[in-house]
């Protein structure tokens, strides 16, 4: 297992009122993303535990694109990764942002 951590300054707070959401499942080629609204509005953080070792640069690129596109201000993402491909990672991150953007608890 390899632990990776990313922190970004972002331009805007993520939408919605939910405090947390979870998407995905930990399996081969899949991952789960737990997203929580716990940070200041201009920050976001991602903590990743991945079974695929040595892909730090790929994660850096995928997450850079994601933060730029969604501006997930105030959100902390905790990721358990079973070795998902970059497109699957992008999809789950987008789903996580959409889920927490819904109104509710």
């Amino acid at each position, binding site marked *: *297992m390899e632990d990776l951590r990313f922190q970004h300054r972002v331009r805007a707070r993520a939408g919605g009122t939910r405090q*947390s959401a*979870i*998407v995905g*499942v*930990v*399996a081969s080629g*899949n991952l*789960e993303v*737990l997203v*929580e609204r716990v940070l200041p509005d201009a920050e976001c953080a991602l903590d990743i*535990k*991945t*079974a695929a070792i040595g892909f730090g640069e790929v994660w850096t690129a995928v997450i850079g694109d994601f933060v730029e596109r969604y501006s997930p201000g105030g959100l902390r993402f*905790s990721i*358990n*990764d*079973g070795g998902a491909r970059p497109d699957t990672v992008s999809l789950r991150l987008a*789903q996580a942002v*959409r889920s927490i953007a819904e109104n509710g608890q």
Partner: protein
Amino acid sequence: MTAPLKDITPAERARSTSFYEASARTRLDLLLDAGSFVEFIGPEQREVSPHLKIFDLPEQFDDGIVVGRGRLDGAPVFVAAQEGRFMGGAFGEVHGAKLTGLLRAARQVASIPVLILFDTGGVRLQEANAGELAIAEIMRAVMEARAAGVKIIGLIGGRSGCYGGGGLIAGCCSALAVSEPGRIAVSGPEVIETNRGVEEFDSRDRALVWRTMGGKHRRLLGAADVFVDDNVQDFREAALELLGLVGPFGLDSLKAEQERLADRLRRYGACFDAVDIWTAEGIAHAETVPELPADQFIALADRIGRTSRDAR
């Protein structure tokens, strides 16, 4: 997951969602009354397995099981749903303890039923002793709850089926609903083949797996009380139906089960294949049973009429 479609009802969405394909969370979301689910020890608590790191394996925040409460047609229920894609839905220490705690609460409350959405390969190998013991504790807790008057319904139709100790827990429930892909067994096909050879069981012969362990055979045997099509709404309706049918549990249930199982051995103990059993049940062209669409199969199973009601 797709964006929520505003113009379809929850029931329509549940009807169009495959139970087999859905995640544990989606199953609960669509099975229960909309918005009624409240989770106990959710993923944000990060109560992961303390043992997987020994094997350098990834953890899941809910350890592969979602437990909580919700409502079914307005009435409160306790629910547990296993995630069959995470480590095959297998029982580990934390995973099992969540279900044990839920059942112990149900026993104390005595009036709220429990739905268990099984999806499991059995004991989690990497924490085998803890998983085995968790299953023993769950079986004990199921029986104590049933003795206190709690109805416990098992719903089986997930990717990992209901194998190993999961099959034993299912055997302890008040009633079961099963879909065609919902296999119920103790030893899995690969386990039998590995231990006894391909002549005993060819695990790659999927038709053999389905007709020996699959939902249709279990329904015809009377091991499962209701057969449902593979969608969440049908499971919801089956759960409601079974909650209405389950009677009290006591010594008479166990005596009736002894007779039911002994009778099964007398009738079918010499049968070599499921088709032989179905033929002995008087089903014409029994070899076509696996191809029957759900509605025709349900009519057939109802005509054969075997259930385990009041005998489990």
